[in-house]
């Protein structure tokens, strides 16, 4: 029994069906961690991208170094660092929030590159035309660059959303009860790892295939020339 839901070990099918509602409880936590981690990654990535594109080297250079450092170190170690080191400096966060923060931090390095590539994909001629029309730098960015960069940024961000979802099981090391952790607990208590772990694999496969399909259909629906402003 887990979360007050009993399991039926009379046969394999009954066992699989009886643990599904328990795994769904873990699935909800997985989705929540994915969502929060993605929001953090999207915002932090934007900050890093803005810093990297700054004219001043004192701002751009550290941002590049931070991105490289985050990309080159494992999520697991970053998670341990946040989980065990932050409390030493008086910042005590629940495991779930620390986990989502670590996911967001790791993926901010990737999302910052997505923003940068999206913005750089807007052709030089567009910016020169905006210049010729006497638009300010800010207005050029808001009404010329952003609407054209968004259709390129969104699908790439979607792919990282899926990657974040696949990295959520790492959070089980700080005792977050996401789907894989729940499956392991069921395995530990029933001595049957095959069915819970296979079900988790299957549920992951369904989720990622659905997500891939959603991203593809979103990609074909986004106007390639940019989001019309009016």
């Amino acid at each position, binding site marked *: 029994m887990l979360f007050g839901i009993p399991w039926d070990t009379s046969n394999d099918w009954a066992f699989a069906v009886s643990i599904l509602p328990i795994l769904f409880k873990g699935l909800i936590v997985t989705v929540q961690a994915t969502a929060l981690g993605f929001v953090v990654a999207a915002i932090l990535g934007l900050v890093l991208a803005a810093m990297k594109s700054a004219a001043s080297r004192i701002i751009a250079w550290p941002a590049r170094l931070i991105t490289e450092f985050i990309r080159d*170190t*494992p999520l697991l*170690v970053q998670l341990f660092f946040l989980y*065990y080191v932050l409390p030493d400096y008086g910042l005590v966060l629940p495991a779930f929030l620390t986990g989502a923060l670590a996911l967001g931090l790791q993926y901010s390095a990737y999302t910052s590159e997505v923003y940068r590539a999206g913005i750089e994909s807007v052709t030089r001629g567009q910016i020169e035309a905006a210049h010729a029309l006497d638009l300010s730098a800010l207005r050029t960015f808001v009404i010329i660059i952003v609407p054209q960069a968004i259709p390129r940024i969104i699908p790439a961000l979607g792919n990282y959303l899926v990657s974040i979802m*696949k990295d959520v099981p790492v959070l089980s*090391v700080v005792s977050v009860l996401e789907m894989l952790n729940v499956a392991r607990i069921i*395995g530990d208590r029933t001595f049957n*790892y095959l069915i819970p*772990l296979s079900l988790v694999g299957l549920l*992951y496969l369904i989720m990622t295939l659905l997500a891939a399909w959603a991203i593809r259909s979103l990609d074909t629906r986004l106007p390639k020339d940019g989001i019309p402003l009016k």
Partner: protein
Amino acid sequence: MQWLSYTAPLLEGAWVTVQLTVYSSILGTIFAFAFGIGKLSANWLIKGLAVAFIEVFRGTSLLVQLFWLYFALPVFGQVIGVDLRLPAVAAGTLALSLNIGAYGAEVVRGALQAVPVAQHEAAKALDFTPRQTLWRIALPQAIPEMMPSFGNLAIQNLKDTALVSLIGLGDLAFRAEQVRNFTQDSTTIYSLLLFMYFGMALVLTAFMQLLERTVGRWRAGSH
């Protein structure tokens, strides 16, 4: 200098991490080519197997795959009456290489498909067999195009090795966790750990760039 006493166990773990990265990268490259080429096969059975392999290992989480191979596979073996218990090092290397191999397979497929159709037509006109066309025409041109993505995947693989500490393999992350349990000196140990992984990644990046330059000579017209 308290942290100096940590270096011996950490270096011991780092050596395991290096070995795991090297072996799983080599095995992963073999999987990548086998399934990447398989996905382009005209034989529907080979193609179907390759697609299924790629979807399963890209579509699920690495940690799920690792736990499945280590905890669930022996149970599966019991059901079918075969001993499928894997030592942790085998389960770890296999999970890492299958996972990175599935990502690599898509890179291989993409690069092979990017070889201009005219090259295949020319090979046909010169009476090359399909096997000769693949080995002598398509692959030498496609491999240099794969290298930047392979460089990223190698770093990904190095980072992923940290997860094998969760099935008890004595890699860098595992040793660090042991030292921390003993000394409770989290800040020093995890900072050291981050910088050690960063250092290994820089070395790996340099090596992959060297490799990229070496195979770059295979490009048409560079002789």
